[in-house]
């Protein structure tokens, strides 16, 4: 690997402090430390260190996302060809999806890393790894047909306002990927909801009976119709066995939605991998799931419409719930930082997520809003957990 090292050595004078391309120093440093774990040795404190670093942590998360990502690519193609009534082999569907997805990923990374590198240069610190994950999360929670410039603008907004203004990776209040999605959702609502954006139908005539809606979009139409209304039978039939949005289809992910969010199975697989690797917090995932389940259960018991009456487990398989649980709520920076706080944070995020989704059908992505809301609340939860420790200590003094 000498020649790679040589390239870095040769270009280093260009980007160093007095070099002509100093603005590229963070990029140079980022690439070099990516290619080679640096030869830095310990100089204070403990003399040996764990092999783990933030790059390792982040790449582990990326590995966990890969199954859902690949599935999402295939699902793009599958839905596309089904919508225009063409038969397509698995590979064709996958390639079609991959060609849709790659520009999204590239644009996200370019926009986000551009901002990161600029700030690294301005603030004179190395590029942080956080965006490696955010940059892949953002395209996975976008609808397939969203224009690239919107993704770029959302990403830039997220990195700037969501992260850099607070001081960069580790200092942010909100999950950057969700900030990007929230920005896109509120800035370009027509591109982020409805029944036109989830399935790519260009290049063909849609078949009879085609619907581009999502499960949650359809469910939202049942609100206000009461329970057992025959008018909703056609929609609810889709949720029964053999329907479009049957439990099995939702679990496997054969439904329309944001690109990476549909397959509960593969997301769970990624989640298990994260827990197994000790990178994702099982406390958050478990309590998030329970929170959602409890809320969906309460709705189910006191249902006044079909949306509320949906089987709680089925409810959790739809929309961004699973994706939010595994990849969004667990972001260690924006989540609660205390172990007790994680249970509360996760539970409430899941709980509110389902609540928003069902109570306000205009926001089918209640999960996104709930997690962002709990991001903001997480410091408050931590505050009370830490305060309890402080009180315990103060009490000890009083007794001593």
């Amino acid at each position: 690997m000498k020649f790679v090292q040589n390239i870095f050595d040769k270009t280093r004078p260009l980007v160093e402090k007095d070099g002509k391309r100093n603005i590229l120093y963070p990029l140079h440093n980022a690439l070099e430390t990516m290619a080679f774990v640096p030869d830095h040795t310990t100089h204070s404190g403990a003399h040996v260190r764990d092999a783990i670093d933030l790059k390792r942590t982040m790449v582990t998360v990326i590995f966990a996302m890969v199954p859902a990502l690949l599935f999402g690519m295939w699902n793009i193609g599958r839905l596309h060809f089904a919508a225009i009534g063409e038969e397509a082999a698995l590979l064709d569907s996958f390639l079609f999806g991959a060609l849709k997805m790659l520009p999204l990923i590239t644009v996200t990374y370019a926009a986000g890393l551009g901002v990161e590198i600029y700030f690294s240069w301005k603030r004179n610190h190395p590029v942080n790894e956080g965006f490696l994950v955010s940059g892949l999360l953002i395209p996975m929670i976008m609808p397939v047909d969203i224009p690239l410039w919107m993704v770029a603008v959302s990403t830039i907004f997220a990195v700037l306002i969501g992260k850099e203004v607070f001081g960069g990776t580790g200092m942010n209040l909100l999950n950057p990927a969700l900030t990007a999605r929230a920005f896109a959702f509120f800035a370009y609502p027509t591109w982020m909801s409805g029944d036109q954006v989830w399935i790519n139908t260009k290049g063909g005539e849609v078949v009879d009976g085609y619907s581009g809606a999502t499960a949650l979009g359809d469910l939202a139409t049942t609100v206000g119709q009461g329970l057992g209304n025959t008018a909703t039978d056609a929609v609810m039939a889709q949720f029964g066995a053999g329907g479009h949005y049957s439990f099995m289809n939702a679990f496997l992910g054969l439904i329309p939605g944001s690109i990476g969010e549909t397959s509960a199975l593969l997301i769970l697989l990624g989640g298990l991998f994260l827990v197994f690797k000790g990178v994702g917090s099982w406390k958050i995932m478990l309590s998030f799931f329970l929170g959602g389940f409890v809320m969906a259960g309460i709705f189910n018991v006191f249902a006044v419409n079909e949306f509320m009456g949906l089987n709680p487990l089925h409810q959790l398989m739809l929309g961004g719930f699973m994706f939010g649980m595994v990849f969004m709520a667990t972001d260690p920076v924006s989540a609660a930082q205390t172990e007790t706080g994680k249970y509360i944070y996760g539970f409430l995020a899941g709980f509110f997520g389902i609540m928003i989704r069902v109570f306000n059908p205009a926001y089918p992505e209640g999960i996104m809003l709930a997690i962002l809301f709990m991001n903001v609340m997480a410091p408050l939860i931590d505050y009370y957990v830490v305060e309890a420790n402080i009180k315990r200590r103060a009490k000890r003094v009083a007794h001593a």
Partner: protein
Amino acid sequence: MSQTFKIRKGYDIKLVGEASSNDLGQHSASTYAVSPLDFPGITPKLAVKAGSKVLAGDTLFFDKDRPEVKICAPVSGEVAEIKRGAKRKILAVLLLADSETSYAKHDAFDLKKGDREAAATHFSNTGVGAFITTRPYGVAASMNEQPRDIFVNGIQSGPLNGDLATQLAGKGEAVQAAISALALMTSGKVYVSHDADAAAVAELQAEGATHITFSGKHPKGLVGTQIAKAAPINKGEVVWTVNAVDLPIIGRAFLSGEYAPEYKVAVTGSKAMNTGYATMLQGVSLNGFISANFNAENTRFIAGDVLTGTQLATDGFLSFGKAQLTAIPEGNQTEFFGWVLPGFGKFSTNRAFWGWLFPNRKYDLDTNMHGEERAFVVSGEYEKFIPMDIFPQQLLRSILIRDIEKMEQLGIYEVVPEDFAIAEVACTSKLPLQQIVRDGLNDLRKEMM
């Protein structure tokens, strides 16, 4: 009946190069050095100058603010040089040793009749008071303080730590004398800790002490853990701590009035050609000893263990209070895509690597950082290694923003840097936790004085 505590949070870093039972003999040298840098929180004021003749046990320097804190000469001889650094900061007092050590004249101390005041004076004058550390702050104790309790740490469970039974063998009488002397200094208890997982140390079964036992993982061998479990420190309280390995030196100072800081030093590490135990005095020049017993090529020499030890030069001197030498390879090499590769053989406390599947594997660790420093990102990481009722990350943050009140509330009085050592090793963001805690303690102490 002694109380037993099980330590579940923590980590045993298993390294190759454990001390064998070999006796590496006596090591002495013509030069000795005592460095004020071994005593955090002390502003050294010299009691000698270059050319002064000293006896073993004569004061070399003392703390400017607390003149009763005295650091004494380990041997008799002549002060060869006062080594100074930037701004004339004293780095070390170099001594040229006599061929035969003569001791400063102190009377033996009658432990049956002595009272606290006399014991305090004796501790201070003979120099053995310097072996006592005070909490809060983790600095050398002033004999004018009234400690609530005194904790004697009889557990050596850190990486490659020597076997205490070997190091204290045959010194039972001196150990007992030291415990009795310490008992005079407090109206509270003298706790002595024992390791349930190691061979019992008969010499430590001293009378007049409260015995507590710990089992489980390191940091059971850190006195901070032991205090937190047995009787945590509250604001306004002072607790003294002593390492069991220093007890014979304290005992001897009381039994015969002599200051002879002699250790059976555990010689360890993957770079040690001969592991075992060598008898030597604190401050002795290691020049010669290192070349005889270690492979010195690209090697990091450490007085103490890899968690909390002090880095030594190849011609360095045995640091104060250290009964262990560790030598490990320097890790000054890059690694191609080391963060992506599976890394089956790599050491990690984190399951992101595969080593956790082989809990008994021993590692030949080098000093590589394995990454660059980052902000706090991962949460819940430090808690796994600090078995105290403390929120480590929140405490560290309060230190970083210099919020004295928050530091107090979050329990800074209960910790010293070494309590954060394992967390520092494990830290994903590669943050210098021990240095942060030391800075916080220094700030706090300045505020309080």
